[in-house]
């Protein structure tokens, strides 16, 4: 791609005066960094809620016929866990928090393309949460996070669910539009497409998917809303409607949605690995273009969620093939990352631990996805715990781990403080052990035929007596993950006040955000730098001119913290 | 003269007038450059297709 022509004006006189007053600075702010923090705070709040619902589920499943929750409450719990997790946790955190904070800094911009729209996008987020939870009066949505008709048509909760998700969908679409315009139009002079950092590439691909797919979701949910409330027969078979049509409309968005979850996490891994093995990233162009390939191919695989729904076999086949094919660009990335590690001088900081874990857990989750891609296998595995294990490995073991890597990596930049390394490592091990214990057994339970979304599995005991043991392993392990999140939150709160000062570039990274102060000033860059190379080549000096601060040409990482004798160090 | 005939005749005439004008506008717009000009050209073109539909509809070639 040729360079987008960029106007070479001296932008140093184009800095707006700073915002005045608490409301303008911290509540209704148009500053992408403040908005990112707002997304982070609200997102982590909803993370704790979604996690609590999951714990309620796990407690119910301690016994084969648990009486902890009523069956209808159980239905509400798995529905809300999924709904909140998908739309009020993962998407806002990876796009709204990470994308908002990091991407404008990486491209040398002072803000996103439409800052006011960015603020609107954020505020729609807590509003969507309020709408969703206000359904409590009538009964929370309880037909699964997918809310298939005809069953979902019978509940009032569905209407609230539709309105809430349409609201967060508008927020997402506007964010996607904003980020796309930002990346296309606001890169620093000299930053051609192939000199962009890989997290920016990932955010760009995510924003494209976000902008196009989310509107399709709003359409599906609008149709469901009209059918639920006004009985407009889109999905009622006796009036000419078609329930399976909802599945097509819903999954046309919801499959690309999973690429919205994971592409930013891929971007984070691409940023973290080179820094902590002091090597240039292997296969920059392959990684960059594979993000676009995944984004595009992601629109062509939706019916693999519908293999047992009665769609014709001639329709199942192409979806199976494209689903296999989408593993290829993903695999290219994984191999490029492995090649980056090979021969590097690896430093096992907390972000690096998360990145390395990602390579294992995400790849494992991706492989089980390939199992599911095969139609004959899927006809057995659909609706079983195998699917639940698969998607939690890629979401929790992929997106969430990528998110945690990002938080631990960019926290020093955002706050000027280092996170406590000991707590960080403890949180890491708790998370990974918890993840494994919770989601690995789901795979063999699913293969044995244990169905998902069932409040009781007592009938399954005769078939597979170990089901009780494994469910209990999962329940105990889930509390490890909960502890890990709690430790992260405590770590962040503690470190903001008491963490070590980070300086401009504690990790010795090479992208533009590490050339400005920590935390960055509200205007980010006093002088917009000029870029004349790619950011990852550790053997070259920094490829920037006209930087605000006098930074080292060859960034070096901070020396490792002094060993702590009480922990065994000398 | 039933309402239907009047509607068809008016639609037929209007389609030629509007469609012809649109073709003329599109021709003038062709050399212009830029995103807004490109989008305008595409949309004008599709609108002309719409006028063609209206002509065909008014003479019962398409539609009921």
């Amino acid at each position: 791609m040729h360079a987008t022509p960029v106007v070479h004006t001296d932008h140093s006189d184009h800095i707006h005066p700073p915002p005045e007053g608490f409301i303008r600075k911290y509540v209704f702010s148009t500053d992408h960094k403040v908005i990112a923090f707002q997304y982070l705070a609200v997102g982590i709040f909803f993370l704790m809620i979604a996690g609590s619902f999951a714990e309620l589920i796990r407690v119910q499943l301690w016994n084969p016929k648990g009486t902890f929750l009523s069956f209808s409450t159980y239905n509400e719990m798995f529905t809300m866990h999924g709904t909140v997790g998908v739309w009020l946790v993962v998407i806002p955190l990876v796009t709204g928090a990470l994308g908002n904070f990091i991407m404008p800094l990486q491209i040398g911009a002072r803000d996103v393309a439409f800052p006011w729209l960015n603020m609107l996008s954020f505020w729609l987020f807590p509003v969507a949460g309020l709408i969703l939870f206000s359904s409590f009066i009538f009964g929370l949505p309880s037909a699964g996070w997918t809310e298939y008709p005809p069953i979902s048509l019978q509940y009032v909760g569905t209407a609230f669910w539709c309105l809430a998700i349409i609201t967060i969908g508008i927020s997402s679409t506007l964010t996607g539009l904003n980020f796309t315009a930002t990346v296309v139009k606001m890169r620093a002079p000299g930053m051609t497409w192939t000199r962009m950092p890989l997290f920016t590439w990932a955010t760009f691909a995510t924003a494209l998917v976000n902008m196009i797919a989310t509107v399709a979701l709003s359409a599906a949910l609008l149709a469901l809303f009209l059918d639920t409330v006004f009985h407009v027969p889109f999905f009622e078979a006796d009036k000419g409607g078609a329930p399976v049509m909802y599945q097509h409309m819903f999954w046309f968005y919801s499959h690309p949605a999973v690429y919205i979850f994971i592409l930013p996490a891929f971007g984070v891994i691409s940023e973290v690995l080179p820094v902590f093995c002091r090597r240039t990233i292997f296969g920059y162009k392959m990684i960059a273009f594979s993000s676009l390939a995944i984004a595009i191919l992601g629109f062509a695989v939706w019916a693999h969620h519908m293999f047992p729904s009665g769609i014709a076999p001639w329709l199942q086949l192409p979806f199976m093939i494209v689903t296999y094919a989408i593993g290829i660009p993903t695999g290219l990335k994984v191999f490029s990352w492995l090649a980056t590690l090979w021969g590097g001088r690896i430093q096992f900081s907390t972000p690096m631990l998360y990145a390395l874990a990602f390579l294992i857990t995400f790849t494992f989750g991706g492989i089980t996805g390939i199992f599911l891609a095969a139609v004959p296998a899927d006809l057995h595995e659909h609706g079983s715990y195998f699917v639940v294990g698969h998607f939690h490995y890629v979401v929790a073991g992929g997106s969430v781990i990528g998110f945690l890597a990002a938080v631990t990596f960019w926290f020093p930049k955002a706050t000027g403080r280092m996170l406590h390394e000991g707590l960080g490592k403890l949180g890491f091990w708790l998370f990974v052990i918890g993840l494994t214990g919770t989601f690995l057994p789901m795979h063999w339970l699913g293969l044995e035929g244990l169905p998902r979304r069932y409040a009781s599995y007592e009938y399954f005991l005769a078939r597979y007596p170990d089901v009780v043991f494994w469910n209990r392993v999962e329940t105990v392990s889930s509390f490890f993950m909960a502890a890990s999140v709690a430790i992260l939150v405590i770590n962040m709160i503690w470190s903001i006040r008491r963490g070590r000062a980070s300086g401009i570039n504690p990790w010795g990274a090479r992208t533009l955000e590490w050339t400005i102060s920590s935390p960055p000033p509200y205007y980010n860059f006093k002088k917009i730098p000029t870029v004349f190379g790619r950011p990852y080549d550790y053997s070259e000096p920094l490829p920037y001119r006209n930087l605000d601060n006098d930074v080292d040409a060859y960034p070096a990482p901070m020396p490792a913290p002094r060993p702590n004798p009480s922990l065994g160090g000398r | 003269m039933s309402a239907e005939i009047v509607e068809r005749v008016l639609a037929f005439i209007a389609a030629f007038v509007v469609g012809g004008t649109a073709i003329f506008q599109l021709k003038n717009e062709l050399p212009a450059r830029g995103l807004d000009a490109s989008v305008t050209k595409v949309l004008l073109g599709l609108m002309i297709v719409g006028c063609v539909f209206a002509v065909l509809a008014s003479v019962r070639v398409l539609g009921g």
Partner: protein
Amino acid sequence: MSALNSPLEAVEARYLDVDPVYAETRDIRLLGFVMALGADCVLFSSFIFAYLYLRTASPAWPPFVGGHQLPRLDTAFAALNSMVLFGSGVTMHYALENWKHLKKQAFNGWLAATIVLGILFLLGQGHEYLSAQMTWQGSSFGASFFTLTGMHGFHVLVGVCYLIVLMIQSNRGVYTGSKYFGLTAGTLYWHFVDVIWVFLFFLFYLW
């Protein structure tokens, strides 16, 4: 810039060269607006998919309700109403052209014509709704027709309101000969609404 359509584009071009900060802002806003129209396309495409699915899955079209087959829609009236809307697209284009040539009077006239034609179209749709034989809740035909044309009509209504705002703002002097992004956006939006109707007209009345 080589080929220009009007003296004002030359003025705008010189202004864009003189004020590159405005040029960048206008460029960014134009890209954002066009992408928003693209997203709106996806909205209509989704419902058009639903219509195609329901129609092809139905044993008869128009479908049977209460033992009787619903009648086809009135093509003649719709053809005329479509011409009203397409005509408004042409008048809107002339309005913008006249603005670029600094002809304020002509601009006002053409913009007024566009607004009137837009309102006439909405009235026509109202007549269509009142004389329709199917109901919104009664069949997949009514469901898809009223939802899709209703969404379109809502877009037209918003468009008419926006054009009225443009009329007021331009007469207050908000837009100048060289800075008139609101007018450009309004014109693109109006053409977009026009083209969506081309598809709906074909799908519901001609097929």
